[in-house]
């Protein structure tokens, strides 16, 4: 198997310094909705200038380069051990080159590892096998800490919010999460929502949906409708960019459903900040393509 360390390093560089086109487009659209001269508009304009500057200079979009989350689809027969080693080496090198800030801190002894490698779980890597003839794909998402801190998990029913175990109840708790987050997750944000599962699988799934492109709707028409509705209603709350007040608080909502135990009904909300950093590389034979 060929060594992909350099190609993965390039994936990390692009992810950290160059915001995906679909996200930038949404941010540009949002600018026009805010009053000229308002704090909200100023915030979005600064964000857009920051995006251009980071791309031009190859510097991190945000100094918090986040939790690196890799999703790897590998053709049958490829060694996941080798892939993991290459990903980890690329991560250490990316840190050396300042594409990534040293961001892995030992929780017990408060020590920063200095190279973004910490134990077996940092960076987080998920492997999925595909047919032998299929290309290898590696997706990377960088999930910031400020927005991760405003994520929330609810166990339904929730009597305080009057939220039962159905999509109506889901709507209520998601809106609650947005109201509580205010601007703290560096709004405008993108919501990843998962319904069902256990506490752990539910949170993972709420991040996994964030790998899809802006505006991609769920195939389930009921969820698709709820996605649209939540984005609209979240924006009615007027929290605005950075919590300065304004029209755009949430750029998009993505919902997925899991199976659950009869006894539990979890709803997990992952809040993704405007620095919605996710990129994909596809390896087909000798060719490596970045999206």
């Amino acid at each position, binding site marked *: 198997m060929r060594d992909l360390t350099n190609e993965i390093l390039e994936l990390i560089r692009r992810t950290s310094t160059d915001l995906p086109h679909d996200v930038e487009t949404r941010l540009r659209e949002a600018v026009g909705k805010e009053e000229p001269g308002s704090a909200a508009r100023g*915030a979005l304009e600064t964000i857009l200038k920051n995006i251009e500057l980071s791309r031009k*200079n190859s510097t991190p979009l945000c100094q918090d380069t986040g939790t690196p989350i890799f999703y790897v689809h590998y053709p049958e027969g490829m060694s996941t051990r080798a892939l993991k080693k290459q990903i980890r080496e690329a991560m250490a090198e990316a840190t050396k080159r300042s594409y990534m800030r040293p961001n892995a801190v030992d929780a017990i002894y408060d020590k920063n590892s200095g190279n973004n490698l910490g134990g077996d779980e940092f960076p987080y890597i998920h492997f999925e096998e595909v047919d032998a003839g299929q290309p290898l794909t590696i997706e990377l998402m960088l999930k910031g800490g400020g927005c991760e801190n405003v994520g929330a998990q609810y166990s339904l029913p929730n009597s305080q919010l009057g939220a039962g175990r159905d999509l109506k109840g889901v709507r209520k708790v998601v809106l609650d999460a947005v109201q509580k987050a205010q601007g703290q997750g560096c709004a405008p944000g993108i919501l990843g929502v998962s319904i069902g599962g256990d506490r752990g699988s539910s949170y993972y799934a709420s991040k996994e949906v964030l790998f899809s492109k802006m505006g991609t709707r769920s195939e389930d028409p009921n969820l698709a409708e709820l996605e649209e509705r939540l984005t609209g209603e979240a924006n009615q709350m007027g929290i605005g960019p950075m919590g300065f007040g304004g029209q755009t608080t949430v750029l998009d909502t993505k919902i997925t459903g899991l199976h659950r135990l009869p006894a539990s009904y979890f709803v997990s909300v992952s809040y993704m900040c405007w620095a919605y950093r996710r990129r994909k590389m596809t390896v087909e034979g000798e060719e490596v393509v970045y999206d």
Partner: protein
Amino acid sequence: MREITIPISDETVRSLKVGEPVALTGVMMTGRDAVHKWMIDTFIKQTRQPQGDDLEVYAAIKPLLEHGVIYHCGPVVAGLDTKEYKFVAAGPTTSIREEPYQADVMRHFDARGVIGKGGMGPKTLAGCQEVPFVYFHAIGGAASYIAQSVQKVLGVHKLDFGVPEAMWVIEVKEFPVVVTMDSHGGSQHAMIDEKSRKVFEELLAKS
């Protein structure tokens, strides 16, 4: 956008109102958790004796903070080996962690502005009215852009606290911020929270 230079006069501070976008120019200092704690313990509550270069550093920052500005920021800095420092990424960090200390620090040093993100609580807001000072909200995540408004790194104190925790003295030009807590008891954060809660309650009532 209104342009303001540091040091900031009382008159200017009192004229600033929540929601106002401002561009800051002048010399300011970064300080976060370690710095605030050091100031409180060594010079304000004096629960700890000054040690090492504490007194020298204090003498150096005192005139700087008079009518000056503290920035809650843990920068990424290049040129650490050559001491030709340059800010690479310098976005704001979450301010609320300094809530127990901020008002006392501002009063002691007679400072007029604090920059950060996410806003602060009632103790700081009361301090804003009394000292007076204002809270400026920077744009979270705009690390490259803000780093570019840092014209020059004039020096650093207490580098032994670590790069993100040290006191970096920087000269900035047109640093973009928004006033979100003013010296008249106004807090954009409290206002937006209340407004959005009302809408949220209306939405909850719908099915």
